[in-house]
């Protein structure tokens, strides 16, 4: 029970482990992806600032050029032209690096290109100003005009640059937003997953711990069981063995060795060694082939004798069974037990039984022969008496006649006794076969047998429907005849006999004296009369052989009839009881086993 729990746990643990592994892997990959996104967005910030810086530089170079150019125009000092001269190259350099930075953005490129164009225009104006001599008045106006246009171009450039910076900032904000969107759930998500993993690990830990505990306990129990089994083997004097059919090896328990009078593990358990112990006369009983046990499919049982190491002969009962484990390994397991005591006592019992059976048979046949053979001479005595009475009755003295009448009466009584005894001896169970019989038919036969008395006594009989039972038909018919006959015989003087026969199926549990029996259900048949009844104190005695309640002159009888009833009912494994109130009537109840 507990071990299966452990096994279930291991498979659960497997599932948990695989699940956890994938969860951790998932978390790691998500984290990795987020770090990459983070570094990308930093690059973009740098990129935006670079574009910003370069554009500022671009304008500052232009301003430098303009300042130098203005200084020269005022002072005509060529020193002022130096920044102007170098600025165009620098502007070109910055333009190219900017172009590089925004090469993936056509909109910005367009703007950059227009800036460059305006710058070039501005430079052309600057250079034409330089060529015009400021000292000439006409030139003076042109320069002013150029300056005016240059300022406008400058405005345009600034506007474009500002636009570009604004655009770049917009990109940055959008990217930052996107980045934030992507990363805002990252820590929470990671945290949750981590927590989940922690729970899983904690759960696994508890389960493993628990399983380990059960395993440990099972182990302990197993040890106790093994130990107690060892003791049981010793106390119950049996030994167990295993026969591995693949490796062809035997394993004996300690007591298996002791059973054969040897020290535990004192010899190699093999078929040959085992056969060596078996009584030579019984060796043929041992199945030489494991296939024999295998083919039996079920438990194999055999008995044999062994000669122990000390020379004592013991009786062994061996039970074996094929065991196939989960991996398909075949193993024959068996138990050998020492049944010497049992064997001896059962043998003694068997002998006693046989003797009893023999005695019973002798008694029955004695009964039969005695009563049968006694009939013969008795009948002759009676016949001779009747002949003498018939032929010489008239010449006899009154006294002789009286004696003859007495002899006749005594002989008649003896005849009835012998007849009843014969009937009693015939209710021998062994001679009769059980048959599935409808009791209604048997009752009808009985009533037909009793028809004369029933008619004479004007008796009424009311019978319930009876069942079909496995009985000895002749005996049950006799039972009915005796019980109904009894009811008719002991009728009340001034009341017409009325007999009621009832039937019901009853549970053994409803009657205390049936409880201990092996049958569950009984067929209960009651035969109730309105006759003179008897004293309830006599209820048990009336079934005793030769026991009579009435004086022979009142009611002739042998006291055998009810004994026959009892014997018949007992032959069928049933019970008969009598109940009565004197002067009211009697009820005889028969219980016959159903199931």
């Amino acid at each position: 029970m507990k071990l299966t729990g452990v096994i279930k746990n291991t498979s659960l643990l497997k599932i948990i482990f695989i699940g956890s592994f994938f969860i951790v892997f998932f978390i790691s990959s998500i984290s990795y992806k987020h770090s990459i996104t983070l570094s990308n967005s930093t690059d973009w910030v740098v990129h935006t600032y670079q574009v910003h810086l370069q554009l500022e530089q671009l304008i500052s170079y232009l301003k430098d050029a303009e300042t130098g150019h203005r200084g020269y125009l005022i002072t005509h000092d060529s020193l002022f032209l130096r920044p102007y001269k170098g600025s165009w190259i620098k502007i070109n350099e910055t333009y190219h690096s900017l172009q590089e930075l925004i090469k993936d953005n056509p909109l910005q490129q367009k703007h950059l290109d227009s800036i460059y164009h305006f710058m070039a225009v501005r430079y052309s104006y600057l250079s034409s100003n330089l060529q015009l001599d400021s000292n000439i008045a006409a030139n003076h106006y042109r320069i002013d005009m150029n300056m005016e246009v240059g300022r406008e171009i400058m405005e345009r450039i600034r506007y474009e640059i500002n636009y570009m910076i604004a655009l770049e900032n917009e990109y940055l904000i959008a990217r930052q937003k996107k980045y934030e969107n992507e990363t805002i759930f990252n820590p929470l998500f990671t945290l949750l997953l981590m927590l989940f993993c922690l729970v899983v690990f904690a759960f696994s830990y508890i389960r493993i711990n628990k399983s380990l505990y059960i395993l440990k306990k099972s182990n302990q129990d197993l040890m106790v069981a093994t130990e107690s089994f060892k003791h049981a083997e010793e106390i119950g004097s049996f030994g167990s063995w295993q026969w591995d059919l693949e490796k062809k090896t035997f394993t004996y328990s300690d007591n298996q060795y002791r059973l054969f009078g040897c020290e535990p593990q004192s010899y190699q358990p093999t078929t040959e060694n085992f056969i060596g112990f078996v009584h030579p006369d019984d060796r043929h009983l041992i199945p030489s082939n494991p296939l024999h046990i295998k083919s039996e499919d079920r438990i194999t049982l055999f008995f044999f004798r062994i000669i122990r190491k000390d020379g004592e002969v013991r009786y062994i009962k061996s039970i074996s069974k094929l065991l196939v484990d989960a991996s398909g390994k075949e193993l024959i397991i068996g138990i050998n037990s020492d049944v010497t005591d049992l064997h001896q006592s059962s043998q003694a019992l068997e002998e006693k039984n046989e003797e009893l059976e023999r005695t019973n048979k002798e008694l029955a046949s004695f009964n039969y022969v005695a009563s049968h053979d006694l009939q013969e001479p008795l009948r002759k005595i009676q016949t001779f008496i009747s002949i003498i009475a018939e032929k010489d009755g008239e010449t006899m003295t009154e006294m002789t006649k009286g004696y003859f009448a007495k002899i006749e009466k005594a002989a008649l009584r003896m005849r009835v006794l012998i007849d009843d005894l014969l009937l009693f001896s015939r209710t021998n169970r062994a001679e009769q076969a059980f048959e599935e019989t409808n009791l209604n038919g048997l009752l009808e036969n009985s009533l037909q047998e009793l028809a004369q008395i029933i008619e004479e006594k004007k008796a009424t009989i009311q019978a319930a429907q009876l069942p079909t039972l496995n009985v000895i038909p002749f005996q049950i018919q006799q039972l009915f005849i005796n019980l109904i006959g009894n009811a008719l015989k002991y009728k009340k003087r001034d009341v017409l006999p009325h007999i009621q026969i009832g039937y019901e199926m009853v549970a053994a549990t409803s009657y205390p004296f049936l409880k201990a029996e092996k049958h569950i259900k009984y067929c209960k048949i009651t035969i109730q009369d309105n006759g003179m009844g008897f004293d309830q104190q006599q209820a048990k005695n009336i079934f005793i052989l030769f026991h009579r309640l009435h004086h022979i002159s009142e009611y002739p009888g042998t006291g055998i009839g009810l004994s026959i009833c009892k014997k018949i009912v007992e032959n069928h494994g049933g019970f008969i009881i009598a109940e009565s109130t004197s002067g009211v009537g009697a009820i005889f109840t028969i219980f016959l086993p159903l199931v």
Partner: protein
Amino acid sequence: MNNEPIHVLLADDDENDRNFFVTAFSELKIKTVIHVVKDGIELMEHLAQDGIKLPHVIFLDLNMPRKTGMECLNEIKKIQHLKDISIAIYSTSASEQDIEDTFVKGANVYIKKPSSFATLKKILKEVITLNWQYHTSGLNRDNFLLSL
């Protein structure tokens, strides 16, 4: 009744019973010819003779030495010209089982030897009368069963 005497054959090993039987018949007002044999072998030998007058009824004791009444019954029922003779079993024991078995084997009458001479006479007369009825009054002989 018929003017022709009734032929009766008795097989019984007990001398007293044979005497009772013969005496009883002699006292009945029925014209009978009685033949008596001592056992089954003798009975079968008697029946095997040529030209004998076959009996109307055979009375058979069941318990006889050498050949029992039952064996005789079985043999007689197998012999074509004998099988229609009425058979009356004449025995000491009479369990219901015995009676039924002999009837099934073909006996017509089962007599439990009575214990009074008067009863014996009455019974024998009844058997002879009824047998005669079956022979003459067109009764179905298959239904001829009588237990006394």
